[in-house]
């Protein structure tokens, strides 16, 4: 049988534009589709580029902390922690233990809040409108605590090079203990509602698969990488602050699909809550700021520090020239690197899957564009 000339088709370019309910911020995805199948995806970023790195060169170290708050505006305290540790390394000071415990408690609570936001928005991307309400209710509790401790619900500007800005209030420990119980119940509610729901499983299992070596080559990190079976967690592999003194588990997935990435974040919520409990048991009395010179005029040099953000491995490369302003601050945003894997994950899936895959990467555009 002779092969007939194929019907001439043109691939359609479907634009999921910067304004779209499902793209988690100003992110533009151009999908090259053939009917319902995606052939290629071309991401366009840069809509939220604010020049953070360049601004950091003309601001003092204390002011740069506020810039870092806004890089990943959902996990603020984790960003602050990364930069503040870089500053401490280059100034060769160490924060006192109490300050480290406070930092880790707040950072882990912020991780839970960030994952709750992820669960809610991922569910609503896929059409389930209830987990977002439950998730945000728990986030409110956590943000109330942050307001009590740091003075702000979101852009905290709380950590300093050498410690934290001010000590926690007296009712901090009982408040946090009660908070952990309430948040844990909320997370369980979202878990029971969503994780083994038939329709949810059908939307996320086997969708957006990326295997371990490709993921590592693309530079993925965090739950997106651990979903593919690579047990890389900065808290475990390159411990910092008081993480060596905590018992915790790092869940690792096997299949590298959307459900794995989602469920690992769910498990991490539970782990973070138990870490906070351990910190509350161990937190010592003491100073919350390193003694000595407070003016941030570090010696000249370069330092690279990375920490585990909810989204992955946030790296800060700090170049100092000896003045009170950094010479170069480079932020390694986990979402930026995770997006490199988007094309590999999305090729060959349906249009509706593109939304599910993008959601499962849990990107924050403030971080991607800086």
């Amino acid at each position, binding site marked *: 049988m002779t092969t007939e000339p194929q019907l001439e088709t043109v691939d359609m370019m479907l634009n999921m534009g910067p304004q779209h309910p499902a793209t988690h911020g100003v992110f533009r995805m151009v999908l090259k589709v053939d009917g319902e199948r995606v052939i290629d995806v071309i991401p366009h*970023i*840069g809509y939220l*580029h604010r*020049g953070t*790195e*360049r601004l950091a*060169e*003309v*601001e*003092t*170290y*204390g*002011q740069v902390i506020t810039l870092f708050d806004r890089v990943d505006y959902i996990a603020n305290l984790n960003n602050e922690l990364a930069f503040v540790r870089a500053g401490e*390394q*280059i100034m*060769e000071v160490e924060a006192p233990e109490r300050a480290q415990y406070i930092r880790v408690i707040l950072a882990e609570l912020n991780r839970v809040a960030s994952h709750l936001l992820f669960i809610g928005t991922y569910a609503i991307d896929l059409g389930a409108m209830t987990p977002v309400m439950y998730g945000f209710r728990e986030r409110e509790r956590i943000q109330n605590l942050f307001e009590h401790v740091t003075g702000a619900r979101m852009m905290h500007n709380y950590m*300093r*090079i050498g410690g934290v800005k001010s000590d926690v209030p007296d009712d901090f420990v009982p408040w946090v203990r009660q908070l952990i119980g309430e948040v844990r119940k909320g997370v369980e509610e979202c878990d029971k509602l969503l994780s083994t729901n038939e329709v949810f499983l059908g939307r996320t299992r086997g969708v957006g698969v990326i295997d371990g*070596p*490709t993921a*590592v*080559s*693309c*530079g993925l990190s965090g739950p997106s990488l651990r979903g593919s079976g*690579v047990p*890389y967690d900065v808290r475990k*592999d*390159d411990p910092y602050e008081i993480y060596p003194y905590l018992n915790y588990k790092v869940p690792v997935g096997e299949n590298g699909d959307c459900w794995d990435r989602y469920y690992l974040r769910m498990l991490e919520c539970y782990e973070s809550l138990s870490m906070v409990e351990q910190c509350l048991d161990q937190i010592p009395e003491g100073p919350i700021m390193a003694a000595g*010179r*407070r*003016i*941030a*005029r*570090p*010696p*000249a*040099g*370069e*330092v*690279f520090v990375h920490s585990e953000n909810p989204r992955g491995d946030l*790296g800060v*490369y700090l*170049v100092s*020239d*000896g*003045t*009170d*302003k*950094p*010479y*170069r601050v*480079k932020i*390694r945003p986990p979402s*930026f*690197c995770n*997006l*490199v894997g988007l094309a*590999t994950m999305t090729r060959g899936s349906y249009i509706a899957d593109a939304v599910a895959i993008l959601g499962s990467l849990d990107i924050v555009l403030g971080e991607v*564009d*800086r």
Partner: protein
Amino acid sequence: MTEQDPQAAAEAPKAAEAPAEKPARHGPPIVVAEEVLNERGEQTAAQLASTLGTLALDSAGRQDTPWARVAAKELHAAAKKCRDGEMGMDMLNLMLAVDWVDRIQMIYVLYSTTNNRKAILKADLPAESPSIDSLTDLWEAATWYERETHDLFGVDFPGNADMSPLLLYEGFEGHPGLKSYPLNDYEEW
């Protein structure tokens, strides 16, 4: 010298704030940090030295991360040796460019998920028409890093298939990451 907060320093009169590239007019002389490697860093430095051999022009390191400076032309070969050799650097963790006004320094932070070691490769590029071979054939993460560096610093990466602007838009003139880019006098309209 009074002890001030980093915040209070911000509130100091504006006259005291010098632009970043000039040395501070007040305060103690600039101290250069001594770069000391800890034990793990020494091991990694030894591995790095044996992997790179003569390619490393100089090297040092801080804490557990050694760095080695190579010539710009040799960077691709050096990175390939780091990836394929005993170091097994399978992840390009970070790539950045630092604008020291007379030259642009490219810094590559490599990480090995199997050995859990970090190493840094540095290469110096001339300030006019900086160009270095692309590493996209070694790590896919390099694609976006190189596009971003090209946008912000004007570094060319022959070998990268897609150099369209990533963070900036088509038609943007200038490279904002460079120190010579006017930060305050910038006018768009």
